[in-house]
Structure formats: structure tokens, C-alpha cells
């Protein structure tokens, strides 16, 4: 198998590898204080240890659980509310200002309130992930329906299609495109909600571990956790992109 060196992904990996090598070299030469920035090999060692002794699994389970449930509930709620507001003007009158307000504020400020209401367990983290995702998806669906191409609606109507045919053939595919286009962002939002929620108050989760690492001035563990979170989000991001390309193949083929 031959690897073409002149492609963008290969160039990126090469540059990253060079930077890591420089970082490692500087750390070994004693030019960087490991208290602030441990060597990449030390960070890798922390990650390996976390998995080897099994300490990480309950934390991963907590964060993933909150994020995945947050995405699921946020998607369903956002789609239902978005469809409802687009089709029922009265509901739009009530929901639109609330959603605009929620969209305008940094929604993570609600985290302490969720802890008071739902405790420090999974519920408050899911709630924060949901509130981050639901606003995004609500606007994707609401605007998606309001901005459906009128020519397509008229085309289906002149072919004899009624409301149900319009929903099935025009609204649902159009909204699906908008929602899938926002799915990658939703993944990031859900993880933000889960981790920030754990950061505020929790007994487990990657956010809890991060809070612990910060309070003990453990830079190695902090960087290891940041890398882990980034890796998992990137994996979900890639899966979302593949799902989008599969379901929206009419847009990419």
C-alpha cells in the first residue's frame, strides 16, 4: 500500500507528529516545567493508566450517558417543538421569545439551577445537555419548515398532493436536512452540557475528574482528560458526518 504524502490529512498528521516530538524534546531537555506542561509521553502514560486500572470507565459511562441521552432527548424535543411552532402560530407566539432568550444567553449558567432542582446525579447533566441541544434543534426545525422552498410546495399541490403528502414529501425531508446539518454541532453541545454539569457538581464523570485534576494541580491528568474528551467528540463528530452523508446522499452524490 502506498501513502500519498501530498494530501491534506497526511500533512496534518505529519505536522502534529513534529510538534509532539518538539514538545517531547523540550520536556526531556528540561526546558519546560512538567508541573505546568508534562511531556507527551507522561500524558500518554496517564491515559494508559486510567484505562489499565479501570478507573476511567465509570466516569466515561457517566459523561457519555448524559451526552447521548441529552442528544436523544434534545433532538426529539427540538423536533416536536419546532414542528409544533411552525404549524401552530399560537405555540410559536409562546415559544419563539423563550427560545430566542435561551439562545441569546450562555445556557451553561443554568447548570447550578439544575443541580438545585435535580441533584448532583445524572439528571442535572442530562438537563443541561438537553437545554443546549434543544434550542439549536428547535431553530433548525422551525426555520427549516418556515423556509421550505415554496416552489416545491406548489409543485406537489399541483400534482394533487394534500397536507399529508406535503409533510411526507417536502417538510420532513427538508427538516431532516436542516437537523442533520446541525447534528455535529449538537454533539459538541451535548458534551459541553454533560462536562460543564459535572464540573459544577457531581461525584463522577469526565467533568468531575477534570475538576479533581484542577483542584490538585495535576496538569498531566488535566491534559489527558482534555485529549480524551476531544477524541470522543471527534469520533462522534465523524459518525454524525457519515450519517449525514448517508441520509443526505442526494446532496453529496
Amino acid at each position, binding site marked *: 500500500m502506498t501513502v500519498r504524502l501530498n494530501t491534506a490529512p497526511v500533512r496534518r498528521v505529519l505536522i502534529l507528529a513534529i510538534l509532539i516530538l518538539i514538545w517531547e524534546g523540550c520536556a526531556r531537555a528540561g526546558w519546560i516545567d512538567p508541573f505546568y506542561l508534562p511531556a507527551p509521553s507522561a500524558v500518554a502514560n496517564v491515559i494508559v493508566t486510567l484505562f489499565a486500572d479501570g478507573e476511567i470507565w465509570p466516569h466515561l459511562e457517566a459523561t457519555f450517558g448524559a451526552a447521548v441521552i441529552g442528544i436523544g432527548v434534545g433532538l426529539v424535543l427540538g423536533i416536536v417543538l419546532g414542528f409544533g411552532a411552525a404549524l401552530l402560530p399560537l405555540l410559536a407566539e409562546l415559544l419563539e421569545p423563550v427560545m430566542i432568550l435561551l439562545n441569546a444567553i450562555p445556557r451553561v449558567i443554568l447548570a447550578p439551577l439544575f443541580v438545585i432542582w435535580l441533584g448532583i446525579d445524572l439528571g442535572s447533566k442530562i438537563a443541561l445537555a438537553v437545554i443546549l441541544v434543544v434550542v439549536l434543534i428547535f431553530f433548525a426545525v422551525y426555520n427549516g419548515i418556515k423556509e421550505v*422552498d415554496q*416552489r*416545491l410546495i*406548489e*409543485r*406537489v*399541490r*399541483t*400534482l*394533487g*398532493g394534500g397536507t399529508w*403528502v406535503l409533510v411526507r*414529501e*417536502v417538510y420532513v*425531508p427538508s427538516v431532516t*436536512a436542516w437537523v442533520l446539518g446541525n447534528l455535529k454541532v449538537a454533539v459538541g453541545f451535548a458534551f459541553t452540557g454533560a462536562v460543564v454539569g459535572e464540573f459544577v457538581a457531581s461525584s463522577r464523570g469526565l467533568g468531575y475528574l477534570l475538576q479533581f485534576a484542577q483542584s490538585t494541580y495535576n496538569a498531566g491528568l488535566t491534559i489527558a482528560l482534555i485529549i480524551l474528551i476531544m477524541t470522543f467528540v471527534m469520533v462522534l463528530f465523524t459518525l454524525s458526518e457519515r450519517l449525514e452523508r448517508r441520509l*443526505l*446522499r*442526494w*446532496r453529496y*452524490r
Partner: protein
Amino acid sequence: MLRVEDLTLGYGGEPILKGVSLTVDSGRFASLIGPSGSGKTSILRAVTGLQKPDSGSIALDVPQNAVGFLFQDDALLPWRTARQNVALGLRIHGMARKEAETRADDWLAKLGLAGFGDRFPRQLSGGQRKRVAIAQVLALEPRFLLMDEPFASLDAIVRTNITQELIGWVERENLTVLLVTHDLEEAISLSDVVYVLSQGPNARIRSRHEVNIARPRDLLGTRDDPQFPALLKRLWDELSAEAYSETVGEAAQ
């Protein structure tokens, strides 16, 4: 037969059309020409029920489901393949999916698109998309065809070829047609009768011209008919007078 009587129509404020009356007898091809903004498209939209008239009456001797509407733009569903787009109208009218898609393939083949059924609209050229749109309408075997400058966006060669195919089909099936066009030569070449609309707002039918060129017609050959240049000059003079009246009206304001 289509009979439009005393049609007045607008979008609030001064009506675009006022007191428009016209008739298209069964099996005849009528064209509607007029300056921009004279409400040509609005008449077609009113006939299909997409636009509600302020007053007047529209009578058709065929049911609405026997009326086909070819739009100015192709307006195909981007998430459906060419086959699915053509089959859509058939399925709306109750045909089973498999049968509808087989019928759609037949229609695509008739319009020179055999083997293109699996392609999405964005994978087709402008001319191919237009053929799919024609197949979508003709597959429903309409008795009355409304066309709103359906080929305006195509280059001259493709436009002439598709128009020739369509006129052949109209003549063979003895369809009744009302065409909106800006192209005076196209109007004369295709029509049995040409209606000229005056400048809007308050546009009305300014004149009606019979075209007695024998059928079947060859699109390019009709231009050699002795009637053609004389009628073209009359239509040209009438539209120029309407354009002049608009300029004078604007200057007076």
C-alpha cells in the same frame, strides 16, 4: 375547454388583472403574451387554484386532476431520484409504488432519459431536469396543460428540441394548452390563438389573434409561413405600444 370571465386578481392594493376574459377551446393551443408584470403567471395560478381571484369566474370542462402545470423552473424534489420525482404524481393518485416507478421509467425513456432514473436532480443538466419535470406532468396524462415559460432557462438548441418534442406530444394527444411566454416567435409557432395582455396593474386582454398555420407543425418550419412575419410585426407593435405607455405613465408620475 377553459373559460375565464371577468377575472380580477391582485395581492392587496391595486389589482394586477382587471376584468380579464379569455377562452381556450378543447384541443386548441393558446398563448398568453404581455409585458412583465401584466399578470400572465397569475392567470395560470388562478386556473390551478394556487391563487384565489378577487372576482370573476374560471370554468374548466375537465376535473382539476386532469390539469397539468409545467412551471417556469423545474422545481423537482432534490431528495428524490428522477424516477421517484416522475412517480410522485402517480403515487399521489393512488398507484402502487412499484407500478408507478415502472411507469416513471417508461416516461423517462420516452423523453430520452432511459437509464437516468437513479440520478438525483443535482446530477442532471438543466435540459435533463426539464425533461424530468415534463415526464412528471405528462405521466399523469393530463387533458389540459398549463405552461409558464417552461423552457425559458434553457439554451436555444435544447429549448427548440424539447419544445418540438412537446408540441408533437400535444398534437398527437390532442391536448388543450395555455402557454405563458415572453417569446413572440414561440407563441406564433406553437399556438392556434394568441392573447395579448396590456401593461399592469389593471391589466386586461388587449387583443386576440388567430394563427392559421397547418398542423402538425415543425417549430422552425412555421417561420417560413407567410402569416408568420405579419403576425410577428403586429404582436411586436402591440407590445411596444404597451411598453411605451408604461414609460409615459412613469414619466407623468
